[in-house]
């Protein structure tokens, strides 16, 4: 029967190695506490505190990165948390995204009842959940991270209480997110039954010992299938994408930017952890499923985006097609999962996530500016003639859209090239060709938006569009990064090449 525990010996904890995570959580708690005890802070200070916290966490992650590249990856807290470049890369990505989103949220929240520490604390909490997802070395820890991220996001999506759409977006996200979490949890339970552990390192060993039997384990395969359903929902892969357009459209624009960057990155990090690192022994079973998800996401995402009339919805469907590209990378990683030479799939996915996060936050920043001017309207008509009213914003928007389409000399080209090359490296030609075809279809969507921005004439009542400083800085920074990483990508590619040295 169950082992009796007489004395409890706590695990040894290397606190400094956990510092990025601690910084995020402590920042969130401090903001809530200080925000409750002090009178209203001056404008912009809440956002500044949030961005500072995220910046600190990001800087600490870079320090840890150096430590890992010197001393090799390891695990922390009795093997529950992995300490490797993979998790640190995602941590840095999440911190950068939080900083950018905090700058967007600042202007969005001014003058609303939500202007307080709560939204920023939730951004930090969600970020901490994402970091836990990326660095979990135990499926239960991963589940806790997933829920921390998701619960914070449900509230953020529904946070605009003056809008019916925001509430509707929140409840839709909550119901379908909870549905997906339940599938994910049930999958963990079944995999636990098959391997006797939820710890990823022990799971790999346990599977290594049983894999010679050549008997497919029904329990484990059912578990893997349920995990795939749960992860499919979280990364918004077709056919588990139904929530995405509604939630993206209804949620406040800064929150949408956050979902498309942080939530997507954390979900893909979790997917790589679960599939490539924990379950390489079932790679021949899950890889075809990923292949089909990638195919459907690529085609449905780009084709349905064409017929949308709302720019936020278009970007939502385009994010589904981007998820398809990322799945191409995951599929490529699946070919070499568990082998000594990990191939280029994982680093291609990481690079894609980094570049996509910045360009998608930039895109939603432009949507935020235009939507605010048009009184909450984010239909494509609101963008008509943007170039005549705000040429700089229109130019930046064009850069983001070209990057999303994957035009050379933008970061999007590097990202798409990376995953397609990874697929070709492992002879996955079919999906690589489909990815390129879908990129062409998706380009039509971006061209349609660009055409409206550059050729239309603005409506009669066109007052000058107000671009707050923080939002302007975000847009400019994201645009510069998108071009810079597109022209000089070497340093970023070198960084992502090392993320395949993961701990387990």
């Amino acid at each position: 029967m169950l082992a009796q525990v007489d004395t409890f010996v706590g695990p040894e904890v290397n606190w400094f190695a956990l510092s990025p995570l601690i910084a995020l959580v402590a920042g969130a708690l401090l903001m809530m506490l200080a925000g409750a005890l002090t009178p209203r802070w001056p404008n912009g200070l809440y956002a500044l505190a949030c961005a500072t916290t995220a910046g600190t966490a990001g800087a600490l992650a870079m320090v840890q990165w150096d430590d890992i590249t010197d001393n090799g990856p390891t695990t922390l807290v009795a093997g529950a948390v992995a300490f490797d470049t993979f998790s640190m890369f995602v941590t840095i990505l999440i911190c950068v995204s939080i900083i950018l989103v905090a700058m967007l949220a600042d202007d969005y929240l001014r003058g609303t009842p939500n202007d307080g520490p709560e939204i920023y604390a939730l951004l930090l909490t969600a970020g901490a959940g994402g970091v836990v997802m990326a660095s979990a070395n135990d499926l239960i820890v991963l589940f806790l991270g997933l829920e921390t991220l998701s619960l914070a996001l449900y509230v953020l999506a529904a946070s605009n209480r003056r809008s019916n759409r925001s509430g509707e977006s929140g409840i839709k996200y909550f119901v379908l997110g909870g549905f997906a979490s339940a599938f994910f949890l049930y999958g963990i339970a079944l995999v636990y039954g098959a391997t006797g552990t939820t710890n990823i390192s022990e799971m790999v060993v346990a599977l290594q010992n049983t894999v010679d039997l050549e008997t497919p384990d029904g329990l484990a395969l059912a578990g893997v299938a349920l995990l795939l359903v749960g992860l499919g929902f979280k990364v918004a892969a077709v056919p588990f994408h139904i929530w995405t357009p509604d939630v993206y459209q209804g949620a406040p624009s800064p929150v949408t930017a956050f979902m498309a960057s942080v939530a997507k990155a954390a979900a893909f990090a979790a997917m790589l952890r679960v599939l490539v690192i924990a379950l390489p022994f079932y790679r021949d079973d899950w890889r075809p499923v990923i292949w089909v998800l990638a195919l459907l996401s690529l085609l449905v995402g780009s084709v349905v985006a064409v017929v949308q009339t709302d720019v936020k919805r278009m970007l939502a469907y385009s994010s589904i097609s981007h998820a398809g590209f990322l799945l191409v990378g995951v599929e490529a990683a699946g070919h070499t999962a568990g082998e000594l030479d990990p191939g280029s799939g994982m680093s291609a996915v990481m690079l894609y996530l980094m570049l996509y996060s910045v360009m998608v936050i930039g895109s939603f920043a432009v949507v935020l500016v235009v939507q605010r001017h048009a009184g909450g309207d984010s239909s494509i008509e609101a963008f008509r003639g943007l170039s005549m009213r705000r040429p700089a914003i229109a130019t930046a928007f064009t850069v983001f859209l070209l990057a999303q389409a994957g035009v050379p000399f933008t970061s999007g080209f590097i990202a798409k090239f990376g995953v397609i090359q990874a697929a070709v490296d492992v002879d996955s030609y079919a999906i690589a060709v489909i990815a390129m075809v879908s990129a062409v279809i998706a380009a039509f969507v971006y061209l349609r938006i660009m055409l409206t921005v550059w050729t239309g004439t603005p409506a009669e009542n066109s007052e000058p569009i107000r671009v707050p400083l923080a939002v302007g800085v975000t847009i400019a920074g994201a645009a510069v990064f998108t071009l810079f990483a597109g022209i000089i990508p070497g340093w970023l590619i070198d960084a992502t090449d090392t993320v395949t040295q993961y701990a387990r």
Partner: protein
Amino acid sequence: MIAAIPATSYLLLAALLFSIGAFGLLIRRNPLIMFMCIELMLNAANLTFVALATELGDINGQTAVFFVLVVAAAEVVVGLGIIVAIMRRRPGATADDLAELKG
């Protein structure tokens, strides 16, 4: 001592509960009932954890249940909060009424 019920029975019961939850979520239209279905699914996973932990003689599966209970409680808080916020604006709204966002 009562006769031991085989672990398979628990697993089948859990699978049944999970299916009821999943199916209920898809066909019911009341947000509160849908919410209860999610809880049912989580508890089915809990039952699976406990049954498997007993079968394996391993305590980790049982501790996992406590984590899940906490998560489920947190989900109740957030979920009910969102539902209350919506019901205040639109009393008696069902999932079909929440169709402003579509396309």
